[in-house]
């Protein structure tokens, strides 16, 4: 299969988190009763006109900057025509020949961990369509229900260059794109809620060839996993086509998650002809250098820069920095914690270890964590002070994660405080010596391993609370 090289480009749609829709004052709230968040404008009633939401332009400029694009000085909207019941005007207001931003890139790692640039062809603004629910079967009479709540929710379409060469690279690109967008705060990028949608253009060619093969467009991939699987499937399918001498048809195919295959779809419009022309109801947008500067100032530190800073500033390994800057919230969490408890690597271990594990187990996100950065820092201080052992700390943290209580309270309530007074420990030592004469004799006969058994018994009797260093020291003295 190494004979062929896959060529992958992605078209990503991101719903912007504005309060109101792109061209009217209806709410963008997800869900709700059908046809509730609508007004005459987004319903496309006769006589209504669009007025552009300024916030959408600002979000688009911000994403353009974050993706290293050049932001247009002049751009405009166009109408894209196709008949479909979820499109109230039977045209979509979009941008055709003058998108708001173009010619950018972002960096991902290839299969070998080397950085590669994926080009961003363009970023443009457009309105979302409504939702169709298909009902009935061929036996009864099939019909569809139309809900226009989503109609007019602002979208950015981000089109990449065909620069990706493997399913994993495609996934890494989407992951990086999502992270960058989340950092800017313009979208929550939830694939399951449809606020991030992805189509893939895929072709294969003989390795070394400079010309592109016939491409197919894959739709309906609803998760990152689905993207990777669908792209892999489609690459294999195309290679098989070529190997068996069949022709690849340029077409749109849908990913079938259950069967794990891509299937040709009947095209939306028999004749694809969108008849773009400049939207006469909207005036051009002129973006001044000072407007761009203003938005540049609002641009937060982006994941790549933050990752480099974490390595420099906190002296943590690149791997840790990569994980910790994987989401803006996680990075914020980490930094807040380090501010209070400056042993950066220890914090990194706990955040990447216990915290992420528990979040993963409970299928929750960092924002939902009941343990605050301050609480984690306080717990780490308790370990340093010897109040709890490192081993017990995991139990304490687990309890904190479940209940949101402070470490000290958990320790107190569960009686997990470390026993470090010699009198108490000696009392346990005497009991253990008395009840295990065999191992005591073994140790004295020079079998060092027997000491470990005795320490274990002491720890067991103190339910792990005895200070292990102290136990070792006192036991050795006693048996000398």
């Amino acid at each position: 299969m190494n004979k062929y090289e896959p060529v992958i480009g992605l078209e990503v749609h991101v719903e912007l988190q504005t309060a109101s829709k792109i061209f009217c004052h209806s709410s963008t709230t997800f869900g709700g009763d059908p046809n509730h968040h609508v007004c005459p404008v987004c319903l496309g009633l006769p006589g209504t006109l669009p007025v552009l939401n300024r916030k959408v332009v600002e979000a688009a400029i911000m994403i353009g900057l974050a993706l290293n694009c050049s932001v247009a000085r002049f751009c405009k909207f166009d109408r894209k025509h196709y008949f479909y019941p979820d499109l109230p005007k039977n045209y979509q207001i979009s941008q055709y020949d003058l998108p708001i931003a173009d010619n950018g890139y972002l960096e991902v790692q290839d299969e070998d961990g080397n950085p590669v640039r994926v080009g961003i062809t363009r970023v443009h603004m457009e309105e979302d369509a409504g939702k169709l629910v298909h009902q009935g079967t061929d036996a009864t009479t099939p019909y569809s229900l139309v809900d226009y709540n989503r109609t007019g929710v602002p979208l950015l379409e981000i089109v990449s260059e065909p620069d990706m060469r493997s399913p994993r690279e495609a996934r890494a690109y989407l992951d990086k794109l999502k992270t960058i967008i989340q950092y800017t705060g313009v979208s929550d990028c939830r694939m399951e809620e449809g606020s991030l949608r992805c189509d893939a253009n895929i072709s294969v060619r003989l390795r070394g060839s400079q010309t592109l093969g016939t491409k197919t467009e894959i739709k309906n991939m609803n998760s990152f996993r689905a993207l990777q699987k669908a792209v892999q499937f489609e690459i294999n399918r195309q290679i098989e086509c070529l190997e068996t001498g069949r022709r690849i048809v340029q077409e749109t195919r849908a990913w079938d998650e259950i069967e794990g295959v891509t299937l040709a779809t009947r095209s939306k419009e028999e004749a694809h002809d969108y008849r773009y022309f400049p939207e006469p109801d909207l005036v051009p947008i002129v973006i001044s250098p000072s407007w761009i500067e203003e938005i540049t100032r609002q641009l937060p530190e982006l994941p790549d820069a933050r990752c480099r800073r974490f390595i420099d500033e906190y002296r943590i390994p690149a791997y840790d920095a990569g994980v910790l800057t994987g989401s803006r919230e996680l990075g914020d969490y980490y930094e807040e914690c380090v501010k209070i408890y400056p042993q950066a690597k220890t914090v990194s271990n706990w955040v990447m270890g216990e915290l992420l594990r528990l979040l993963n187990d409970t299928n929750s996100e960092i924002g939902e964590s009941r343990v605050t950065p301050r609480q984690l820092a306080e717990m780490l201080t308790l370990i340093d002070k010897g109040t709890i052992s490192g081993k017990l700390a995991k139990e304490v943290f687990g309890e904190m994660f479940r209940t949101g209580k402070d470490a000290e309270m958990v320790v107190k309530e569960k009686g997990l405080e470390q026993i470090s007074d010699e009198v108490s420990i000696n009392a346990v030592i005497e009991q253990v010596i008395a009840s295990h004469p065999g191992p005591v004799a073994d140790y004295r006969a020079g079998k060092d391993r027997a000491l470990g058994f005795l320490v274990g018994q002491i720890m067991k009797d103190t339910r792990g609370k005895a200070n292990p260093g102290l136990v070792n020291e006192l036991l050795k003295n006693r048996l000398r």
Partner: protein
Amino acid sequence: MELCELTANELHRMLTGKDVRAEEICLSVFRRIDKTEDQVKAYLALHPEEALEQARAVDRKIAKGEEISPLAGIPIALKDNLCTKGHRTTCASKILYNFVPPYNATVVDKLNGQDVVIIGKTNMDEFAMGSSTENSAYQQTCNPWNPDCVPGGSSGGSAAAVAAGEAICALGSDTGGSIRQPAAFCGVVGMKPTYGTVSRYGLVAFASSLDQIGPLSKDVTDCALMLNAICGHDPMDSTSVPTELPDYREALVTDIDGFRIGIPAEYFAAGLDDHVRRVIEEAITVLEQRGARVEETTLPHTEYALPTYYIIAPAEASSNLARYDGVRYGYRVEDAKDVLDMFSRSRSRGFGAEVKRRVMLGTYALSAGYYDAYYLEALKVRTLIRRDFERAFEKYDCLISPTTPSTAFRFGEKVDDPVTMYLSDVFTLAVNLAGLPGVSIPAGFVDGMPVGLQFIGKPFSESTLLRAAYTFEQSTTHHLKRPSLTPEVE
């Protein structure tokens, strides 16, 4: 003279002088409608109860000594492509036969805010596509001056209603002459304001970059009052100008001494009826007598205005009319087997012949492979047409021309030949392409049929046009003539 034959300005003075009640004015108009509507057929819908209620509310205000707006209590008709909340708005199309908008057009809200009495919705060419109102899916409106002739179009119902005394004033819309041409045919004043002066929000779109709402009235004074009432910035319309606009009443002075007026030679070329030419020449003499300096000028790209218009307007229309698909409102075929079938058959049965013709034309002009040759080329020629006007306005305060090449034609005369029909707009549509203001006023008669004189100005020079038009009007008596549709009416 009946109250319904007076102007808004006259009626306003009578109302404030307590010589008449708004209710009486309203009743007079409805009496006239009872008498003449069978012949004129100007209205698609009347709202008598609400109109009377609005009129009585104005009377109560006057009785309480409150100040009233210049159009308060004045019965006004609306073209049926202006959305009226709770009242059917059909655009004279079968496809919107039952459409009741849940909102008001901005101009309707503005008129309501000034206590205007809205009496009904007027007939028009379907979706404003036409020059004779023959393209209405519902009825033929007759020219009050001769029932065998068309009232012009597409605002034929509004023009006929005003001419017949079935409304004191009316609103129309003008995409290529649809206010000025019927105003000329019916012997009333009709103005298309500069693009962006009046909000288009709630005007059912025909060609968005050309459409503009404007008034039809019996004289220039009422035209100014109506324009005052409807103009101004609207945040709901991105193409509405945010600048402060003047009080157009201040333009009503009879003084054009030293005015420089250009006569575009191309508007007096072949195709212009000789009798109409003579009327316009007389009008020019009148203007000269009032001190205007009139001279011939040229708009070299005039011959390209019609083909340019007949690419741009249908292209935009094909897009604007895509939404009529039977899903959310309007006509839907009953027995559709699937969505495609529903779309295609609902649209085919819901739209009339002219609408379908233009939708086909516009779809073709925008489709792949033809866009550059037709649509893009038309947008470029539009620039050239605009430049012609800009050059002329370096020298002239305004331009004048006949509004139409002939007086109102007979029913059926041009209906089967689109290009001939389109030619009746040849003097008006360049004004829309260039986004300029234009006003047509009564200039005389040919064989008993009115002739319109058109004034064209630079953007936002409505005051200049009104002043020139007012001066002409006050020097003549054409605007005082009323059609004698029903001899028994005194």
